[in-house]
């Protein structure tokens, strides 16, 4: 079913739309971001500079973006999905040739007032284009092999470009996000089962071949995989972060040491304490309670998305909302697992909390789409 089959009249118009937004979701976003401000304030030793004040400004900008996006009807966003997707691919090409190199990877375009990471933008445009695709595709063709290959290509293009930056974390996020979209759209189980089986088979083959005559990878590639899987074997490189963040987490205890009292994070053991590893500061200073509160807020945001999707009868909107939810989930799940030593260290920020512009703006823009879908959801009687 599509919005075309409903009476558009029943949908609020003009500034009245503001009253029909999902205000619970807005409040949750503000709450999560506020925890971020507090931590940045604390990490800087009780100073608004250099991080917290900049972050507040960005969040303000992001909220404004969210409202603007929310005011624009969702069918407009559906119609520009393909253009947005192509635009994000162009940005990825631009960054490959003109981008700045930071932390050993080419990821940014310097816009002057902020650094744009096109890989962040592509997370959302991929969700949009896949939602639009399955909205357009007649239901009976969803599992038809030809119509399954096309979205796979849509996913793999940005994944391939991001992998070469190189940014393994973001490309995995794109891959899982896109896969989740296809799953939600109703693609037959067998496809996912076979992909998982093939992946597992490939991994087994790679490990089995080690040391054999038919060895699939080079020795140094195996050594890299070793440190990737067991960071403790490289205590000063990959393992350093993990050991330190575990100690920091552990020393937090139930209620934490209190704001600005964290010794482990303060002693500069963690160089990325204000970005990817900010959760360690939170867990050390605000303890288990603080960490769980943030996790709860995240879960509530997911729940609000889920409820909003369930209320919505427009296929594009439901897919989009769920897709944004999954992307958001992947963000914090990967970041937290990495901080807690459950996953290897890949550069993924903690959503809404980590210091950084691109991810914040893109996320809030995406929640703008969720709001727009919520405001403009088909209501009442069928035409």
């Amino acid at each position, binding site marked *: *079913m599509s919005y075309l*089959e409903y009476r558009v009249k029943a949908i609020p118009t003009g500034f009245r739309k503001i009253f029909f937004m999902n205000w619970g979701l807005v409040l949750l976003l503000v709450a999560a971001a506020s925890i971020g401000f507090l931590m940045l304030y604390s990490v800087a030793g009780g100073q608004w500079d250099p991080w917290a004040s900049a972050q507040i400004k960005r969040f303000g900008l992001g909220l404004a973006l969210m409202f603007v996006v929310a005011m624009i009807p969702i069918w407009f966003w559906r119609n520009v999905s393909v253009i947005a997707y192509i635009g994000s691919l162009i940005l990825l090409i631009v960054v490959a040739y003109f981008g700045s190199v930071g932390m050993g990877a080419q990821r940014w375009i310097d816009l002057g007032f902020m650094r744009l990471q096109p890989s962040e933008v592509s997370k959302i445009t991929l969700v949009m284009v896949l939602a639009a695709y399955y909205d357009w595709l*007649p*239901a*009976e063709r*969803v599992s038809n092999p030809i119509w399954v290959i096309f979205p796979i290509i849509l996913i793999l293009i940005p994944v391939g470009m991001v992998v070469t930056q190189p940014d393994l974390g973001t490309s995995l996020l794109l891959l899982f996000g896109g896969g*989740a979209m296809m*799953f*939600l*759209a*109703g693609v037959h189980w067998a496809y996912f089962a076979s992909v998982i089986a093939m992946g597992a088979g490939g991994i087994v083959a790679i490990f089995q071949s080690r040391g054999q005559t038919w060895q699939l990878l080079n020795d140094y590639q195996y050594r890299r995989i070793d440190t990737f899987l067991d960071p403790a074997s490289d*205590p*000063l490189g990959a393992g*350093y972060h993990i*050991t*330190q963040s*575990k*100690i920091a*987490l*552990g*020393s*937090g*205890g*139930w209620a934490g040491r209190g704001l600005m009292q964290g*010794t*482990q994070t303060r*002693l*500069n*053991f963690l160089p990325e304490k204000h970005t990817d590893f900010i959760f360690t500061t939170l*867990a050390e200073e605000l*303890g*288990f309670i603080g*960490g*769980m509160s943030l*996790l709860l807020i*995240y*879960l509530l945001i*997911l*729940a609000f998305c*889920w409820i909003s*999707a*369930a209320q919505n009868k427009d296929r594009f909107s*439901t897919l989009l909302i*769920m897709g944004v*939810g*999954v992307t958001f*989930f992947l963000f914090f*799940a990967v970041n*937290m*697992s990495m901080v*807690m030593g*459950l996953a290897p260290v890949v550069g993924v920020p903690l959503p809404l909390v980590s210091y950084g512009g691109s991810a914040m703006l893109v996320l809030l823009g995406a929640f703008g789409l969720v709001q727009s879908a919520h405001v403009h959801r088909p209501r009442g009687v*069928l*035409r």
Partner: protein
Amino acid sequence: MKPTTKSQQKIWQRFSRRSLLIGGVQLGFAGLLGLRMRQLQIKEADQFRLLAEENRINVRLIPPERGEIYDLNGYVLAENEPTYRITIVQEDAGDVDKVLEKISLLIELSDDDIARARSEMKRSAAFLPVTLRDRVTRAEIERVAENAPSLPGITPEVGLSRIYPLNDIFSHVVGYVGPVSSRDLERRQDDDPLLRIPRFQIGKVGIESKLETGLRGRAGARQVEVNAVGRVMRELDRREGTAGQKLQLTVDANLQSYIKARLGDESASVVVMDCKTGALRAIASAPSYDPNKFVRGISYNDYNELRDNDHRPLASKTVQDAYPPGSTFKMVTVLAALENGTITPDDTFFCPGHLDVSNRRFHCWKGGGHGKVDLVTSLKESCDVYYYELALQVGIERIADMARRLGLGEKHAVPMSAVSSGLVPDKDWKFANRGANWLIGDTVVAAIGQGYVSASPLQLAVMTARLASGLALDPQLIRAENGQTALRTDFPELDIDPKHLKIVRDAMFSVTNDRKGTAYSSRIIADNARMAGKTGTSQVRNISEVERRSGVIKNEDLPWERRDHALFVNFAPANDPEIAVCVVVEHGGGGSAAAAPVARDITLQALYKGDPPLDAYPPKDRERIARQQREIRAKMPDLNAVRKARV
């Protein structure tokens, strides 16, 4: 109203089922995160909290032992000796001023030391140790240890420091280490945490710098618990690092010491290369300097003295300096002509002492001329006009191509600092770099190794080794890494007709063994060690027409820095070449007088692996050589005093 189709309904059902499933997965994963957090923060918290609160957990690096460097026979060229230093941890010292005041009563601390320590303390984190003074004596350490209770934050530490037992013998090859500077960090783009240790020693010059990463090794780490005074209470975890690579070089300390002593006060350089493997048996530049002074921190006076010396002790002349190769380049020209089929060995040219090319007169070194000259005579007597004539027929492009095949103009991959690529000029090079067209006169002077042509002593040695072996040898300096051989052996044949190479080798033999050869007086008469070579004299000034008419001023009458460079290249034994040698004596005068005798001594020394029997020399030289051998032995360092590793 559009009826909803059956398949649409099915998709809707599937969507809600699957969104429920995804929601479930998300919830489940969040639960897992919560459990993990509980495990880390609640269950294991007591242990961590205790560690973190009463004590502090610190990760301390265990610096790896830097790799030692040996010569061919295992003589140690670079090793590590334990040194004591006094460090201070600001955080633990509390009142830094008071502690500094107390400690300066116990050990000698200059204002410089204190100022440097203070500025380091400002830059580094409060819990990191900062060195107050390096190389403290044992007595001072004991005094500090006795007074430890009243000196919070002060710890004596044992460290390893680099030492070069052979002092100045290998300074240009091995180089030296020094404290890491911000420039090093910028240049290396290396994120090894070791480099963040203040005053960590890293390679600055030579092999120490070029092979830094391997020599350094990888740091280990220990997690320690420190109490409030900074004392290490216990070690929680320890991971050993990897020691640096032990390098065995191809150079022979005996031979290199001999060369250094033989060169004496000359500003000169010598390369001895193995003709079978390309291994560099010796690569010496004189005068030299003591690298140990740089490791300990050289004084301004000492440094200025080195810098302002007109014999340039700091320069690594064997690889860094490119000289006009002079007549040693003639083998290139003649091979280019032979390969091109321009001449046969029997073709002759007439040398009247000069040749006029496009209104310019090019002189032969022998004013009266050589008369009728064939190939062998041209090399033997080093007739210039023969090569002017060849140049006109062969052209610069073919000469340049031959030069490159013999390894000139190429930046050889030896791990030494500032390796020069020399210059093999051609038309494109001159147009691009001088903005002018190539002139025929440029070709004429290039044919005798003057003008734009330049080559380092290393390149000339490579050229000679390639001529002698017929193989496209590359110089090699590293014999083994951690006991595993690192020598390349798969050198391809040169792309030159072996017949032509033989012609040139035979002509070179006559240079040193024919009565009329330019280096006849420096011949070797032992049959199993006869050498073949070529003299070269590279002009550093222009000789004007006026001067030429009134007679060219002799080198001895010129001030030192305006005299010609003397060059000599050779290989030996001539029948089955084992080594190639290049000797360049800066401002030494003529190649036959200043460079060839040095080359002969070194060749014999290398072939006999020590002092050769006197009957290898012509009878009339023997008495003088015997005296010289005694003098040089007296000047050489005693290698028995140097530790010899088993390799």
